[in-house]
């Protein structure tokens, strides 16, 4: 395994609209970095740039400390798992997994051993003679993974590898991936739009927005102190309340927006210090908790409370000062 670094990488397809804007990041050897962002934010392009399927307009891409800008995909020694899996439909599972080794002129017995070890690791031993058309979605996903594993590449690039699986399988595979990559001490770049995948899988998360790097850090760091209003709204579910600062009694000229997570909003039955009355609009049970939508004067606030807590009519809401995130007019964190 090796480290992967990007230095001021930019890419545009039409020469006008940047798809990736001046992105710099480092994935140290053996770490998992998740690139998270909404659709169209350039995260897949970022991965394709590293794989060599696209050429960067400016900037440098380093794998294992060496610049690979001028190298073909085949000479970059990275493995990629596609969202569609991109399994070769006319080859059986064994052939699919062994193609990369054959192309590298590895001896037949060595190929056999490595293919079977990868297949065994992913529970594919009984499926080696099947064609992709005769596999379930989860099995195809594992073949795609085995095809990447067998290479023993310098880094793994995964492009939304779980998005075509159903919810149960996705959750299970997510945990398996984490264990697998930990065992392999693999360097992984993992692209997803699913923040739960990002939070649970990664050592660090990079948030991409309109091609630019918005914030990069440990998952909890992003959750606890989002650097921008965008990250604040993007990370966390239910979404953070983002209000005009004045609505929560902040009159600092530098502060435009104030944010507070639904779980940090205190809901009381009786008025107290710094509380304000709000009308209950909607109750959404989420299991152990329920999500309340409260409103006053056109301002809506959502709060999480225990499912068993009785609520009705007018409630009194308090926003604890140490739980409030503040952002300026450009959306940057002010503290």
């Amino acid at each position, binding site marked *: 395994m090796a480290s992967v670094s990007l230095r001021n990488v930019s890419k545009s397809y039409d020469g006008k609209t940047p798809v990736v804007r001046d992105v710099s990041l480092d994935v140290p050897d053996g770490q998992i970095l998740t690139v998270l962002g909404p659709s169209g934010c350039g995260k897949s392009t970022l991965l394709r740039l590293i*794989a*060599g*399927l696209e050429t960067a307009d400016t900037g440098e891409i380093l794998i294992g400390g060496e610049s690979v800008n001028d190298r*073909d*995909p*085949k000479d*970059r020694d*990275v*493995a*990629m798992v*596609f969202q*569609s899996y*991109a399994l*070769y*439909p*006319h080859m059986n599972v064994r052939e699919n997994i062994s*193609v*990369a080794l054959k*192309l*590298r002129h590895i001896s037949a017995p060595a190929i056999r051993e490595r293919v079977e070890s990868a297949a065994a690791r992913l529970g594919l031993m009984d499926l080696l003679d099947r*064609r*992709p*058309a005769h596999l379930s979605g989860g099995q195809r996903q594992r073949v795609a993974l085995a*095809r990447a594993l067998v*290479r023993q590449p310098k880094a793994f690039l995964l492009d939304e590898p779980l998005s075509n699986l159903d919810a149960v399988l996705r959750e299970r595979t997510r945990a398996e991936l984490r264990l697998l990559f930990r065992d392999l001490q693999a360097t992984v770049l993992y692209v997803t739009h699913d923040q739960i995948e990002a939070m649970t899988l990664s050592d660090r998360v990079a948030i991409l927005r309109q091609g630019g790097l918005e914030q990069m850090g440990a998952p909890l760091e992003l959750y606890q102190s989002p650097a921008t209003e965008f990250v604040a709204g993007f990370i966390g579910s239910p979404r953070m309340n983002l209000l005009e600062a004045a609505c929560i009694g902040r009159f600092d000229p530098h502060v435009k927006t104030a944010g507070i997570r639904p779980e940090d909003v205190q809901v009381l039955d009786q008025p107290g210090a710094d509380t304000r009355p709000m009308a209950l609009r909607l109750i959404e049970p989420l299991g152990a908790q329920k999500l309340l939508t409260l409103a006053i004067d056109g301002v809506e606030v959502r709060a999480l409370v225990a499912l068993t807590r009785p609520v009705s009519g007018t409630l009194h809401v308090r926003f604890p000062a140490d739980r409030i995130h503040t952002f300026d007019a450009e959306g940057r964190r002010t503290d």
Partner: protein
Amino acid sequence: MKNHRYLLPAGAFLVCVLGFPLAHTLWTAVSGAASVPRMAGDEILAQSVRVTLAFSLMSVALELALGLVFALLLNAPFRGRGWARAIVILPWALPTAVMAMSWRWILNDTYGVFNDVLLRLGLIDAPVAWLGRPETAFASIVLADVWKTTPFVTLILLAGLQSIPKDLYEALRIDGAGAWSRFRLITLPMLRPAIALALTFRLIQALGVFDLVWVLTGGGPAGRTYTVSLYIYDNLFRYQDPGYGAVITVTFMLSVFALAAVLSMGMQDRRA
């Protein structure tokens, strides 16, 4: 079930244009069954079968090779690709008789543009009667057929190429493949059904070739371009021997059916 009545018009049409002639031919063949042994010793038939097979194999092989090259070119992104695709199909859109007539003029020994060009280039010293000499007449009908039907093969192969997902090529590039390996490991095997389809259509058409040869050479010179279809025609209309003509027709049809069945096995999509 009762909705089957809506199939009646189409069914009646098929009975008229396919069923009736087929039944009529079979009946004529049965009545001429006594001439079946004649086929074995018929030197003209043997010669026409050799000509037909040689013509079919050569023209279809050339069409497949050229069609694949054109399809690959037209599948690559370039400026004006839409126009190029439209232009390439033109020869195929022409009626065979019309284009055969044009080729006859192009290859004409006295007035033909082909001789003119070769003379000006200094490649020949005197005009050549391309359609009048045995060795060049055969090459001429192959050339005209390749010119006309390569577009058809190109079209089928192009459709086949377009159905290959792009990410397979990308995955293989990352897996370590260069251009040739990508062609060998993805393009060719994934194109197999399209190739088999083009091969089936073209072989059936080429084996039954009539109009092109009829207009271009009339089967001559010295029977060098005399195909089975021409021989059948002559039996039916020149020698007034419909029984023998029908016997050859049915034998020929069954052979082509058998060939098509073998080819369609190769057409099975290996992905399934």
